[in-house]
């Protein structure tokens, strides 16, 4: 039997940044849909990563996520982005209920020297697909969000990053004594993204 060799694609820094920022956009939409932050009817189905993905049609949210992903892509290309956190808070009390943590490890050599790496696009898509499936299945163990919620996105950057005029410094919006669930990760050989969700202990679980 002849052995099958996987064809590898060349990944550049810009390409990897685009992949990661796009992934975050779709992941954020998926989280907002699955956690019920916005009503189901405000989402439309599209095909991405070999899966039916849901994207919001709310113009405000759309523009917010678009501008966000553009800035994240810029920071990823400069290698200054360490982490992205999507925070879900109670609208009434502003209490943080969930934190979706996307940790990013950047290959410094690629940023400094501008070299490229090789990895199969299909492999990357497969890894992202696994994460999206896990996000969709997270509703089985995450506590129900019974009250109206809002979301916000925090970016953990290097200390020497110049703050754009549409961004401000913020507190990390932590959860006291959270429960944590580690999800899969994906690697473009330039950026490695680890996913982790931490959520407030449900009162029923504590009982």
């Amino acid at each position, binding site marked *: 039997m002849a052995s099958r060799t996987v064809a590898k694609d060349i990944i550049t820094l810009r390409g990897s940044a685009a992949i990661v920022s796009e992934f975050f956009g779709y992941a954020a939409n998926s989280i907002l849909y699955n956690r019920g932050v916005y009503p189901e009817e405000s989402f439309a189905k599209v095909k991405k990563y070999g899966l039916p993905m849901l994207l919001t049609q709310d113009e405000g949210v759309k523009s917010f996520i678009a501008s966000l992903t553009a800035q994240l892509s810029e920071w990823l290309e400069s290698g200054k982005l360490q982490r992205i956190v999507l925070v879900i808070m109670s609208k009434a009390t502003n209490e943080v209920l969930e934190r979706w*943590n996307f940790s990013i490890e950047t290959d410094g050599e690629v940023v400094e020297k501008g070299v490229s790496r090789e990895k199969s696009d299909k492999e990357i898509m497969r890894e992202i697909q696994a994460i999206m499936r896990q996000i969709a299945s997270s509703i089985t163990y995450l506590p129900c969000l019974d009250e109206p919620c809002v979301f916000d996105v*925090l970016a953990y950057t290097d*200390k020497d990053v110049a703050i754009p005029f*549409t*961004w401000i410094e*913020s*507190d990390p*919006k932590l959860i006291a004594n959270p429960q*944590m669930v580690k999800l899969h990760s994906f690697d473009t050989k330039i950026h490695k993204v680890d996913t982790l969700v931490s959520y407030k202990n449900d009162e029923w679980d504590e009982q």
Partner: protein
Amino acid sequence: MILRTPPPKKQRSETRDPGSLLVASSDLPLVIYEDPPSAAPPPQPSSGEHLLCTYQCRQMVKSDFFDALSCAEKQVDDYQSRSKALEENFSKVEAERKQILDRFLDSEQELAAAKGREQALQEQLLKEVNDFQERFKKQIQSQSELEVKLRNEMNLRLKADASKASAEEKASIFERKLSNLSESIEKEKKRLHNEIELLERDSKLSVSRKSADLERMECRAINAEEESGLLKEQLEDLKKQLTECMHQKSEVEKKLSSFTFQEASSTDSNILVKHLQEELRNYESEVREARKLRSSRENIELLKEKLSEEKGRRERAEGELSKLHEFQMSMKKLEDELSSWKLMIKEIPGVSCSEDIPVKFAALQKEVIDCMMKEGDANARLKQMEVALDAVQSGKHIAETEAAFAKEKAEESKSEVKRIEVMLSMITEERDKLRDLVNEFKRLKNDEAGDETVSGTLIQELESSLAKKESCIKGLESSLHEQKKVNTRQSEEIKLLNERLNNEARRIKSLERESDRLRSEISLLESKLGHGDYSSANTKVLRMVNTLAVDNEAKQTIEALQNELQKTKEKLQAVEELRSQSGNAGKLVDSYISGKVVQLKEQIATLEKREERYKTVFADRISVFRRACCELFGYKIVMDEHQRANGIPVTRFTLQSIYAQGDDEKLEFEYESGNTIILANDYTSQPEISHQVDIFIRKLNSIPAFTANLTVESFNRRTLS
């Protein structure tokens, strides 16, 4: 086998022995014995002379022959019995030899099996040795890594010890400072106590003084009041006297003035003048006293005011006294709190002043957290050590069991070797026995010439087989010896391996401890990561300003402001256009504006005309409509707008039938949002009309029927009348 064929007989002519025996033979002719001639030379016999014998010789020979025969027969029987015995022995020996051969073959098989087992054992041992060597190499590598880590940890530990020592020094310094602080606090406390006592005393003294002053002032006030009363009376008297004196003075002056014209000098007038002057002086003195009284009265009033002020101050002082008690209580509480805080501060080292407390608390908290972390790490390492120890002990047990198993196998092989040696010794003994038997058999067979050759060949064969066995036995002995050497070497190697196992077991434990520690560190870091902790020295957290958490009202206000901005921009543009159009003179603007005003006025006039026209047309039309309604339905309808008590506007219709006999016959209805209600009045309260109202409106709910019925009745009445 004894040969039956005897050897060929020697001829007599050749040899003659006097004592030679005769061997009976069936084939050979009979040879008669003759005494050997002692000295006589043998006669030259003829061919038949030797066959000649005397009768005695024949009988003697015969008897001798028979004796010899019997002896020979006996010997033959003996030899036969011996041969039988030998044959039996030979068969036995053969059987034994077969047994020995079988045993030999078994022993060879066992030897081969033992060799195979030894080879297998050797292979196993070689494999184990190779495994151990590989593990040893790996563990040497891990040991080197661990040594490096150990050195790093030792350095860290030294650093931690140094930091601990410095922290202890700092703690001692801070304790000293704290003791100084506590002393200063005590001193201040004492000072404050003394000051408080002094203040209390002062306050008491001042209170007592004030009370005394108050009393004095009260007494003074009372006295002053009494004096003022007396003085008032005096003043009034004096005033009266003053008026009288003034009156008298005026009279006297008049008199004096009249007296001045008279030049008559009389002593009485002089005396009277003097009296009057004295009275004047008295009166002036009384006036002065009255003024003094007045001033004293004013002073009294001032004193009264001061008294009231003092009373107020007294009340305030009493209130402050009560407050002083409260302050004392609060002071006591504060002192208790101070003492408790002092105790707390004593317990917490490293505090010089109150401002340092939170900073030191934060630093101590950080140190506590670090120490807890280190303690957790140490505990984790301890657990790792214990776990690795247990694992290596189990490995050691396994290795010991394997070594014991190998030892048992070696012992088994040794026992087998011993068994083989024993068998060899037995075989050699049997071989010796066989050799003895063979030698005996040889000796026996030497007597019997016919069987000697047969026994010799048998003996040779036996000797050859024996020689082969001896060679085999020697080979076995040599193999045994070699095996013993191999066994000793293997036991020594096993001992070395056991020692190495023990060392490697220890290294494995330390490795496992290290791995558990690293796992705990990883879990701790992951928990920190999941919690969201970060290093503020390297990282900052940013968020977008224009988040979706902003209310939509802000967006709406922004949009509204933008719209207003656009409108103002448009207005501004229009104004600027106007200004640009009116560039030079204001006259053009005025004319333009006046033209616009005229146009607007004309429009207004036309609109007003239209409105009036519409009103007249409407009035005409509505009057026609009303007249038509009146003639068609028989009622004059008047519509008015009224307001109810609650302020709600309501349309009121007043209907008067054309057949009504009086102006009082009016029906009043109220219309509101599609509902028409009949109102009560004098006309509807009449029994006939009310009866109809009940039937048609209230029961049948039909106002047209009621009005129609009323019209018919009033028509009938009219026509009848």
